[in-house]
């Protein structure tokens, strides 16, 4: 196996993948933070049900998730029609569709570390903040979030890395449109199908390096002694 430089269509796939992972991570932070916070405070008996729904993408075969998303994205289905009405474009086989699918697919990887971190913060520091005149939002931003900073780091890295490597869901809802839905994992698959092992290797190595660096960063960050943040 010889090393081959990454070709320009593959560079486009790489760039698309990074862009997708970035957008998905940002959206996930916005959605998962309040969701994880609510779950960490919740005492309702429906809590296990919600937790199970959030965790579902971990165990569900990506093709199953992808299949149902594809059905939902169909312009004759409510969600698909809403999207067409709102943007004039279809969700299936589009970058927007990939973002929606990836957000759902990676949701547990953002919610779970955050929920664990918030639960570890406990109510004690927040009660102290309240008696010092901090509103609940103020206390969240100035006390809970800094104390849960490791949870945020883990959630960001896992969401990003998990989105980088997704394959099954993308193939089902996105197909293989260059510059639109052709992400790295699809490109690798295509190279292998056409027996271009060197090209596949170049991309696979890049992805391996990215994922490893991301995890290395998280573990190194979370290993630091005592909290000296914020």
């Amino acid at each position, binding site marked *: 196996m010889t090393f081959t430089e990454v070709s320009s269509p593959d560079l486009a796939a790489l760039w698309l993948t990074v862009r997708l992972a970035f957008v998905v991570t940002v959206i996930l932070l916005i959605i998962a933070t309040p969701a994880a916070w609510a779950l960490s405070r919740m005492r309702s008996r429906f809590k296990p049900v919600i937790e199970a729904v959030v965790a579902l993408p971990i165990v569900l075969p990506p093709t199953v998730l992808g299949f149902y998303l594809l059905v939902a994205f169909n312009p004759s289905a409510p969600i698909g029609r809403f999207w067409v009405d709102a943007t004039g474009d279809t969700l299936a086989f589009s970058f927007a569709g990939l973002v929606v699918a990836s957000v759902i697919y990676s949701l547990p990887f953002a919610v779970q570390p955050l929920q664990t971190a918030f639960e570890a913060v406990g109510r*004690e*520091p927040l*009660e*102290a*903040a*309240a*008696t*010092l*005149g*901090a*509103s*609940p939002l*103020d*206390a969240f931003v*100035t*006390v809970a979030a*800094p*104390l849960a900073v490791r949870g945020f780091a883990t959630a960001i890295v896992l969401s990003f890395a998990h989105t980088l490597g997704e394959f099954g869901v993308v193939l089902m809802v996105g197909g293989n449109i260059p510059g639109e839905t052709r992400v790295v994992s699809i490109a690798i698959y295509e190279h292998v199908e056409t027996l271009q092992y060197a090209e596949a290797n170049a991309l696979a190595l890049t992805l391996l390096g990215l994922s490893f660096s991301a995890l290395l960063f998280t573990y190194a960050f979370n290993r630091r002694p*005592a*909290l*000296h*943040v*914020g």
Partner: protein
Amino acid sequence: MLDDALEIDARLALRDLSLSFRMEWKAEGCLGVVGASGAGKTTLLRLIAGLERPDDGRIRFGDEIWCSGPDGVFAPPHRRRVGFVFQDARLFPHLSVDGNLRYAARRAGVGPDKMMEAVDAFGLEPLLDRRPATLSGGERQRAAIARAILSAPRLLLLDEPLSALDAGRRREILPYLDALPRRFGVPIILVSHNSAEIARLADNTAILVDGRIEGPGQTAAQLNAYHAATSGREAFSVIACRVERRNDEMSLTHVRFGEYMISLPAIGQHPGDAINVRIDARDVALSLVPPDKLSIRNVLPGTIVSIENDPAGPWATATLDCNGAMLRAIVTRAAVADLGLRPGMGACALIKSATFES
């Protein structure tokens, strides 16, 4: 606000205890709350701070209704301006001591001069840059009390602030607590299971028994009533005294009740100050004749009003009326028999000055 009274009439069912609190307090000086552990002391403070919501009832402070009925008004804790010093301090671990103090000061609009005053009053200057994790228990409590003060509270709640500290650290914190109401002009509610702390700090005291409040009333009377039920080796008496004079050369403070004087180890008080002196019944000896050539400084003549023998052990508890103050002494049953002690007899109570906690 003219009428800063705190009025509570609240009910709350906990897992193993149903609480029914009813109390009115003028919100002046220091109110002590004593009771056994599990009697609901912490819950009372949490209700006042708004950290707990009662099942039913109302809480009023001055002209503000903090809570009324199960579906009525409920002022959240951050709007009540009630300072809370938790048993475990609860300093924010991600901020330095300075950061913790500023956290409170900024939200209360307290300026840098007030901040300096609090830093000074609690001796926090050398600790400002330290993280809470690196502080000793006593330092942590001092920082927590200063932080609560800097939130400019209208009422300060202290939940067993000394219980996590050893005797040496307690002595370190006590003078700070003692000075709080006057120095910072904030009324205090102090919860403790330690009646010595309450006797030292509280002007008035409420007793918590089985989720109910008795009082508030004058500290000495309340503590004596509470502990009338306690017999045996834990018995004690509290006498309301006034500081007569200080003898700085001998490091003694002389306090007076009625015509009697007691010598205590020197404390921070000034002549004229009221002070509750707590005397463990174990530390009181009885003599039928006024003793002579004895190192014991405090000799209080009185009349025996009752003697309770504990048939299961060697002890008897004698109660002496000394000038109106009821003083309890634990002596051996053998001594009662040898001296022929019985109610109506005159006797002197002997108390070593060294037994007083300073």
